[in-house]
């Protein structure tokens, strides 16, 4: 009822200001009681807290399952739970992937208050990645879970191809953060291929794209996570710095090569100490060349990004309105004509809109420089990363790429020994799901 009080006060203000008419209520003689318009409330607020709590619990459990219990089955069950809870029950919103944009908007726009759940969804998985690796991807992320479940006949994508595709997540990250921070919409949510499934409704286009991705996922394991997910980029960085990380073998590597094909994501690094490295000075020369190239790549990227300002800023409502205001009146029924109609209704000044639009364009132009520069630098660092060789004498997970899905554990003979010794799990139902 507070709202009515407020509105009525507002009304009175309006009346006194503009002498506006009031509506005399009909005098019913038949004793008719006037109903009130129903106002169903929003979902109760405790969901926010609940989501955050469930997330925390799931993450801890996942970390425990992967690093301590080393149980693929547990991870699988947990991921099914996450899919059902965060996916189908909570309808995939809010998810950490999208929370990037909430954080960006909040950091760049003082007016926006980030929902605590969004903040938690952004921070917790990263923090866990810093400590335990990408356990979030393994068992908590609903988008990951739905893809992980359909991995049936994984094929190995040639490394170089995987590398190239691995650049796209950086692209999405840069664009998503740029647009979100400029208030030009949440691109990452817009192109989330699975949220339509979680809602069991949505655009045909979105559903089709999701289905395509899932079908693809039968052969190419987790295509979205590996080749699109912008949040994966951050997790990748954090995971490289992780304090503890899943390892293929419980104690030591016996170089049996049994795990070599166990990872559907091709995130297992084979020992290379035995191979002959290329001549030292050659590598050194290449490395210096790439290092020298780095700033130029960044500059070029920045320039390209800035040159996209017009295209990018077209997503911003104010810019769209300014564009609608320019040029001759549009055909009735068109989107432009509707914008003009609403502008006329609001009774604002075209100059103001134009000024605000110009400001937005400048902002996005600057953002384009930064985002493009970031992409250029990412490219350069990627090239460098490909070119430096660290010698390994045992099979290790690639800390950045490894999703801690625990598939490889059961392919290690030492793990079987451990289980026997521990005797916790009988060997036959220690189900190894490695393809």
């Amino acid at each position, binding site marked *: 009822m507070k709202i009515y009080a407020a509105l009525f006060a507002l009304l009175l203000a309006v009346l006194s200001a503009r002498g506006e008419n009031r509506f005399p209520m009909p005098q019913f003689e038949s004793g008719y009681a006037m109903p009130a318009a129903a106002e169903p409330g929003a979902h109760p607020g405790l969901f926010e807290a609940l989501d955050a709590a469930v997330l925390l619990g799931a993450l801890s459990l996942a970390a425990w399952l992967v690093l301590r219990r080393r149980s693929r089955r547990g991870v699988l069950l947990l991921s099914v739970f996450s899919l059902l809870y965060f996916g189908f029950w909570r309808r995939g919103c809010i998810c950490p992937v999208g929370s990037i944009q909430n954080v960006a908007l909040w950091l760049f726009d003082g007016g926006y208050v980030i929902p605590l759940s969004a903040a938690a969804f952004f921070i917790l998985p990263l923090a866990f990645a810093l400590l335990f690796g990408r356990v979030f991807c393994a068992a908590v992320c609903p988008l990951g879970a739905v893809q992980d*479940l*359909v991995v*049936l*006949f994984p094929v190995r994508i*040639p*490394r*170089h*191809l995987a*590398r*190239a595709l691995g*650049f796209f997540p950086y*692209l999405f990250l840069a664009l998503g953060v740029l647009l979100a921070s400029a208030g030009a919409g949440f691109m990452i949510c817009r192109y989330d291929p699975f949220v339509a499934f979680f809602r*069991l*409704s949505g655009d*045909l286009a979105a559903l089709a794209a999701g289905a395509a991705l899932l079908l693809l996922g039968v052969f190419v394991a987790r295509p979205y996570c590996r080749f699109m997910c912008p949040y994966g980029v951050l997790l990748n960085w954090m995971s490289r710095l992780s304090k503890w990380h899943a390892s293929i073998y419980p104690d030591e590597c016996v170089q*049996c*090569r*049994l*795990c*070599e*094909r*166990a990872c559907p994501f091709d995130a297992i690094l*084979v020992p*290379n100490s035995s191979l002959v490295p*290329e001549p030292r000075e050659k590598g050194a020369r290449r490395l210096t060349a790439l290092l020298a190239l780095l700033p130029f*790549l960044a500059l*070029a*990227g920045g*320039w*390209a*990004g*800035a*040159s*996209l*300002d*017009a*295209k990018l800023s077209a997503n911003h409502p104010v810019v769209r309105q300014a564009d609608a*205001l*320019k*040029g*001759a*009146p549009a055909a009735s029924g068109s989107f432009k004509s509707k914008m003009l109609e609403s502008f006329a209704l609001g009774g604002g000044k*075209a100059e103001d809109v*134009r000024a605000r639009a*110009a400001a937005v364009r400048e902002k996005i132009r600057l953002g384009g420089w930064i985002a*493009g520069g970031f*992409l*250029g630098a990412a*490219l350069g660092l*990627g*090239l460098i990363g*490909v*070119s430096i*060789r660290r010698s390994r004498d045992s099979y290790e997970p690639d800390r950045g790429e490894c999703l801690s899905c625990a598939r490889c554990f059961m*392919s290690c003979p030492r793990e079987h020994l451990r289980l026997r010794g521990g005797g916790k799990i009988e060997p036959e139902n220690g*189900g*190894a*799901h*490695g*393809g």
Partner: protein
Amino acid sequence: MEAEKKERRPLHLAAGAAALAACAFSVLLSILMVSSLFDARASSPLARPELDQWRAALQADPANAAARDALRSFDLAARKMYFGSLASLRTGAWLLLGAAAAALLGFKAVAFYRRRLPDPRSYPQDEDPLESAGLARFTLAATGLALLAGAVALGLKARAGAADSARRAVREAPPLASAPAGEALWPGFRGPAGSGACAFTNLPVTWDVKKGMNIRWKSAVPLPGRSSPVIWGNRVFLTGATKDKREVYCYDLAAGTLLWRASVDSGACRAVEVMDDTGFAAPTPVLDGTNVYAVFANGDVAAVDFCSEPRWTVNIGLPVNSYGFASSPVAYRDKIIIQFDNNPDKGGVSELVALAKASGRSLWKTRRPVADSWPTPLLIETLAGPQLVAAANESIIAYNPDSGAEIWSVACRGSDSSPSPLFAEGLVIAPVTHDKVYAIRPGGRGDVSQSAVAWTSEDGVSDVPSPAAAGELVFLLQSDGTLACFGAADGKKAWEAGLEKYFYASPVIAGENMYLVSREGEVLVLKAGPRHEEVARASLGEPSDCTPAFAPGCIVMRGASNLFCIAVK
């Protein structure tokens, strides 16, 4: 191990079969769902043309029971179909989910039973790390470059699109000057007072386009037009049009760069026939410091602000006019007033039309008892208040520019009248083609044909060019080159001269000198005095029917295809 496989075989098969069945089912289901989705789209409540047709039929004939029943049954069916398909979509989604899960489980089971112990010997040798690193570098670089190229291409495309957009135009344009005293101000046809005269004396009398002598700049005008340039502060405006394109141009007075061009289309886009001598952009635009108001041959009237933002565009009707519409608009307070004279024999209606500067909305229209004519109305201030004098073949009528009410009129018997009236020595001097020159005292009311005519003159009756006045002298130029000079007050002819050239442009006077632009582009400069005295001659090097515009230190002239700014260097 083998034994284990054997005993598990049936399970294995069962799982596989179940998986395949579930697959088939879900495929079928998804097909059905897509179809019902299209049903929902097809029966969308938002677009039901049949319904609208039947409604129209009913509107026409309420008793049409057939249409009524058809409408009702269709409406019911469509609603059923819509909500039905939505419901089936909802249930289908859950079913599909279940089926997919079942298929997944089945396949998992198969994969589980099919699993083999890993056999490293069977693995192909992993690709050589060095080689793969090289490949990776290549593909990564290729991807990056491809993205870069794509971004740049997109960016450039957008740039090209926005190249001549108003935003850039405004950014490049010099700061807007609302012409104060001393600044250039030539806001409409034949200058501020419509007398074709100004007091500037620092203007060149001779120049040479080829050598560039005294030519400040020369820039091409995209579309043809006989409208004359107008000037406000540091900007020159003019219009150009073809049969199906109409544009307003803004040039920088200092440098002559085309700052922007705005196209005008009221959407009425009705074709109109004009004579080549008139063209599609004969009316000269008028300025009020914020907008330029332009009129075109097809009745389109547009207001464009000084930064190229279109304010409004309306069509006041298709002119019915044997030569093509040519009368220029007049700006008065919050109104744009247009003398819209049309040929009654061809079903035209002659009106004086007042549009609101703000919206283009018609504020008032006043019928005019005249046939089609071409003069531009003249706004004068009298003791009794402002008057708008509109000359035509049959009569010269003064209106109240606020209400459009008629104040006085003088009957005449001209035909094809084009010259605009002039205000000099307290007299309205109106040459009426093929009739006489009338000098009228604007005091009276009603029909003042007898009472208010101060003097008339048989000769000096111009047909195309409008007169010009310098102090007490009036200059009347005929298209065949006969130039006559009268005393404005008494109508006594001071002198007359044959210039042996053809003129459509109106004479304009700057200080001492009178500039006359001949049809082939020869510009004669005469003394605007009681004796015929030629000062100089120069040429634009291209034909011109446009009246020059004056700004401090320079003359702006429009040729057939170029705009010239002539100034003493």
